[in-house]
């Protein structure tokens, strides 16, 4: 009973803290807008769920299935980033150390946080459900709202997957190396690979028919039922299905789907997936450090291996080991009164290049040797490989490897609480902000030098120019998101998505780095140059707002 009470209060306090933030209201408002777009009217130019360019009439089962699919496929991605700060907040506010001194065990703590994560995502799911009802009434293709047929797919498909995403967020927060930006990027690929694997495994390669199973997303049973209904009327109908497709002038037709019976067996299958979520949540208690600062300090010391090695060599040279150790800094010492030597006048106009060099140095500090080794390896590989190999395999890696360094642009002052010191120096907007962006650009040019030198040597000058536009655009995107959102997660979520669509799948409109001939022909580098200017301007406005002056 006492444990349940602890669990309840852990969940309630964390949930209340999160949903009372202004940013959460924005998320809910975005969900309302997204809900509106999920049910496009006739002539909107796109379909959300289709089967060979046929869609169901907007009745309760069809709208429920559409919202259910979105909840099961896309919400776990954005939801993960939204809730992956439950433990981090306790760590940053110091509340974690207070909790660590109470009798609350690790398992109770992680389950409480998991429930809180889940509660936040279920609140979003509730808003989606309400929007589904509203949208059926707005589109009015079927005036009768069948509440069970509409709510069942949204919650039965969405809830288990969201429970797993909530547990994954907790697991990533508990494992030290997945706690930060690396974890955000790793999760994106976990999500991507999971979706691709589930989709490719769900449909027959030749007939495109869904195999009804108790799959993670819970979509194969309704999809198989839809296919059967369509085939019964039109035996040679195209069975290829998709989620969110542009029509590009093609005609779409409709059919009536009455839904499936969500039987006890199906519901039990979905509950079983929720059990997996609980197992992941409980497993996260094992690596969880219970806010022990000694463990994170140890990591910091390990990271500074190189500087410690230098210190050791210095000490041996000076023969410090033969003498008594010097008194530790901070001990009681009798020292003479301090005086400060007057300085020659400092430049009132500031030294932009000094700030730029300082920002660049700051950007390059504190990364693991593995990161540097990887970056150097990419430069060498680009220089030694053929242009085809560079464009096909290495360029995508060059555009992803520095993601965790870009994501720090514009957020350091808030993350490390140095804003009051940095913003009270001269020219924080006209010097420090552009210097931060330019440092990001220079860093990108250095990290990607293998790729652009290879393009230059081969005479690919259009590609080379487009590459430099990418080098201007990427730090600008990081800067604008960093200044406005204040954390690295926004960039770490959006950028890999953009990279996946633009660089890997080579969709011309998203080709920010000149990876496709179509993109170059469409003049995308010019478009992204304009977007870059807009993003930098947005960052300047954001910084002005931060300064309140």
């Amino acid at each position, binding site marked *: 009973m006492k444990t349940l009470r602890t669990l309840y209060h852990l969940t309630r306090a964390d949930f209340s803290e999160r949903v009372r933030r202004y940013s959460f209201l924005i998320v809910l408002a975005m969900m309302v807008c997204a809900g509106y777009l999920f049910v496009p009217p006739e002539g909107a130019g796109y379909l959300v769920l289709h089967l060979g360019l046929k869609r169901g009439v907007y009745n309760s089962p069809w709208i429920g299935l559409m919202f259910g699919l979105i909840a099961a496929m896309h919400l776990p991605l954005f939801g993960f980033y939204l809730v992956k700060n439950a433990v981090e907040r306790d760590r940053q506010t110091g509340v974690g150390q207070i909790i660590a001194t109470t009798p609350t065990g690790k398992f109770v703590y992680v389950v409480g946080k998991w429930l809180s994560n889940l509660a936040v995502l279920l609140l979003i799911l509730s808003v989606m459900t309400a929007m589904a009802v509203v949208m059926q009434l707005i589109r009015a293709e079927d005036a009768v709202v069948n509440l069970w047929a509409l709510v069942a797919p949204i919650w039965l498909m969405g809830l288990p997957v969201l429970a797993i995403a909530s547990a994954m967020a907790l697991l990533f927060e508990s494992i030290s190396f997945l706690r930060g930006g690396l974890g955000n990027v790793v999760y994106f690929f976990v999500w991507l690979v999971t979706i691709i694997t589930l989709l490719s495994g769900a449909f027959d390669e030749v007939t495109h028919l869904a195999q009804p199973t108790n799959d993670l997303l819970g979509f194969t049973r309704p999809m198989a039922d839809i296919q059967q209904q369509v085939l019964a009327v039109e035996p040679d109908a195209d069975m290829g299905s998709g989620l969110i497709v542009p029509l590009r002038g093609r005609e779409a037709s409709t059919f009536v789907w009455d839904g499936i019976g969500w039987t006890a067996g199906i519901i039990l299958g979905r509950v079983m997936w929720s059990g997996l979520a609980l197992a992941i949540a409980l497993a996260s208690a094992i690596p969880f450090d219970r806010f022990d600062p000694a463990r994170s*300090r140890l990591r910091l010391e390990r990271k500074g291996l190189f500087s410690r090695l230098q210190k050791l060599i210095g000490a041996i040279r000076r023969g410090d080991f033969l003498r008594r150790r010097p008194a530790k800094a901070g001990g009681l*010492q009798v020292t003479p009164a301090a*005086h400060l*030597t007057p300085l020659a006048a400092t430049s009132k106009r500031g*030294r932009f290049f000094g700030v730029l*060099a300082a*920002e660049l140095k700051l950007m390059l500090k504190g990364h693991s040797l593995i990161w540097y080794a990887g970056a150097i390896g990419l430069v060498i590989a680009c220089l030694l490989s053929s242009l085809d190999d560079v464009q096909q395999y290495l360029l995508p890696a060059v555009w992803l490897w520095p993601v965790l360094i870009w994501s720090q642009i514009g957020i350091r002052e808030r993350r490390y609480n140095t804003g009051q*010191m940095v913003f009270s*120096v001269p020219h924080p907007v006209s010097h420090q902000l552009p210097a931060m962006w330019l440092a990001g650009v220079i860093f990108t040019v250095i990290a990607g030098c293998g790729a652009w030198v290879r393009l230059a040597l081969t005479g690919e000058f259009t590609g080379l120019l487009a590459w430099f536009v990418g080098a201007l655009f990427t730090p600008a995107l990081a800067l604008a998101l960093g200044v406005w959102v204040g954390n690295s997660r926004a960039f770490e979520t959006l950028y890999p998505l953009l990279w996946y669509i633009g660089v890997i799948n080579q969709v011309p409109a998203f080709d920010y780095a000149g990876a496709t001939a179509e993109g170059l022909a469409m003049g995308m580098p010019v478009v992204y140059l304009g977007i870059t200017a807009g993003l930098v301007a947005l960052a300047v406005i954001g910084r002005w707002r931060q300064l309140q*002056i």
Partner: protein
Amino acid sequence: MRILATITKPTEGKVTWDDTDIAQSPDELRAVLGYLPQDFGIYPNLNVVEFLEYLAALKGLDGRTGRKRIQELLHIVNLFEARKRPLGNYSGGMKQRVGIAQALLNDPQLLIVDEPTAGLDPAERVRFRNLLSDLAGERIVILSTHIVSDAEATATEIAIINRGYLLEHARPERLLQAVDGKVWQWVISSTELTAAKQQYLISSTARRGDGVHIRVVGETPPGSDAQAVTPTLEDAYLHFISSANGSMGPIGAMGRENGQ
């Protein structure tokens, strides 16, 4: 303090520096400003030299001047031995000293220090007070503190602020004169202490062999055997704050918003 440090814009009123409105032209002041915030962070992966080099660049110091200045400051704040350790491994007091060092980087004409001695050990506190006193000869130092002994040791002028309103702005001597003849030393039994705390404004208590020695701030002596004593700044502070709150009641009624 944040308004003076150009971090926050005033909702009303104006702050000028050399006849320039700092809300309109903040860079005029920022060029000569040293600011130690009450609550600040550091970059944990940098060592103190790298961190100060970064801030020196932001403050417009050239590389050579900056490096020389940093060496000097590291000796002053007693961090020279720890200069190669990552800041993430520093204790709270050491971080505070990093903050003090960064505030002094550009030889500021206006030094604003918000609760600067929080987290410092006694030796460091004395050392920093001496430094502030030395620096105050050539520049304006604005220090905010709840530790009256810090103000006693360093301040030439004191402003007492209560819930955002200025109660008094005077030299320490004047503040002490205002409370002269209003501070009493009184010896009572320990059983009477609770009742005395509810009745009088008590600035200190000390248990001795002959009973509890309490120090009372009030217009009249709390008892016939109470002795008038020389007031301290702490007594003066309590006097002004409790007068502003409308009574000479107990300290507990004043709350946490009071500042000095």
